[in-house]
């Protein structure tokens, strides 16, 4: 018992356990096989449609023929936004790692919000580039979609986390009274 508490007392182990628990919780919430016609699936459908709308709006900046119906984007090529297209793995890993790291809660919340925003923007860029990959180099789509972009997203998430740690570790400057 005492050895367990001594192990958990180590900052590295405490961070790893917290990170694993938070990530497991978030992955369960996201990946749980909810009933097909339940509220959760409706919510997920609405969320994916919203995501498709945002991607469609970005694509409309360069191509005005883009139309979004549900979670599918129609234009010169068609793209369907499904569960894993939202970079949720990167979001979950980043949010779990920042939340598990010791630091002031408000600062962590700000870092999580900022980080998720950056990952979201990167993911929009990913989907937009995939649209053009389908158009120009269809045979490279599977490679870019399933191998190249996921690597870049995970690497970017790791860099983002390491960068945000400097901010989380920084001692707050006392305000002048």
């Amino acid at each position: 018992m005492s050895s367990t508490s001594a192990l958990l007392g180590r900052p590295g182990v405490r961070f790893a356990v917290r990170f694993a628990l938070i990530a497991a919780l978030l992955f369960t919430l996201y990946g749980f096989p909810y009933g097909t016609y339940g509220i959760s699936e409706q919510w997920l459908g609405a969320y994916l449609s919203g995501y498709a709308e945002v991607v469609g709006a970005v694509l409309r900046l360069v191509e005005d023929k883009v139309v979004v119906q549900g979670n599918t984007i129609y234009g010169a090529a068609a793209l369907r936004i499904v569960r894993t297209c939202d970079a949720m793995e990167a979001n979950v890993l980043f949010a779990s790692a920042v939340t598990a790291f010791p630091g002031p809660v408000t600062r962590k919340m700000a870092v999580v919000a900022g980080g998720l925003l950056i990952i979201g923007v990167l993911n929009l860029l990913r989907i937009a580039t995939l649209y053009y990959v389908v158009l120009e180099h269809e045979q490279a789509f599977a490679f870019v979609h399933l191998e190249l972009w996921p690597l870049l997203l995970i690497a970017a998430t790791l860099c983002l986390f390491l960068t945000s740690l400097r901010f989380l570790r920084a001692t707050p400057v006392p305000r002048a009274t």
Partner: protein
Amino acid sequence: MEFASEAWMRWNSRPWAAERRFALRLAFGLVLVLWPWAGGHRVAALASEVVNAGASLVFSGPESLQMHPEGPPDSWNALLTIRNGLGTERVLWELRRIPYIPTAVFAALTLAFPLGSRKRRFVVLAMGVMILQALPLLRLILLLSSNAPIRLVGLPSWLHSALVVACGALVFPPGMAYAVPLLLWLLSLSLLDRAALALAVRSALGLHEPGHFAPPVSRLSPKSRQKHRRNSPHGKRGRRRRSRHKR
């Protein structure tokens, strides 16, 4: 902009050579293992042999599971044929994304990182590869337990749900194919060489004395120690470098 140029200059300075070497080795390793090489058919053939041998031990009678390579010679696909008394189900499995990529990324990380001794590197590599090769079993069990009426494994619903979540978090590509080997690599480093991991983390956070990213000399193998002595400022090459600098 100033921060970026300062960081770039610091990165290019000599004390950061160990970090630079790691980054370059990793980048080279990743390009090498992730390049779309032909040869998937051989991987599919090997995986099929392993799966068929395992399945013949577990299933008997009308129930059977068979796997064989599918498609042209450069294809990474394998076809799983699941049979029970009620019928047959065929499922295509792309072996490049599961389990090749996670294993290859793990190997690239392990081989790029300066762990000091070859033995430790081999232990980390073997442990990680074993775990990453075992993870697709989760997907296989999920497949065999969910294709009603062609179902070979009966699981309680809670366990099935847990398996769905575990597969989503650990096995299914795209993102986790890279995140899982990275996390596993960090975990195995923390178990086998905490000093090296601590130095790597401190290096990434900019909290260390530059150049300390490499393991301490006492942890190096005799051959690496010799090389380190030659390269150190007081060694043969170091003295030569200093004399060249003076001139």
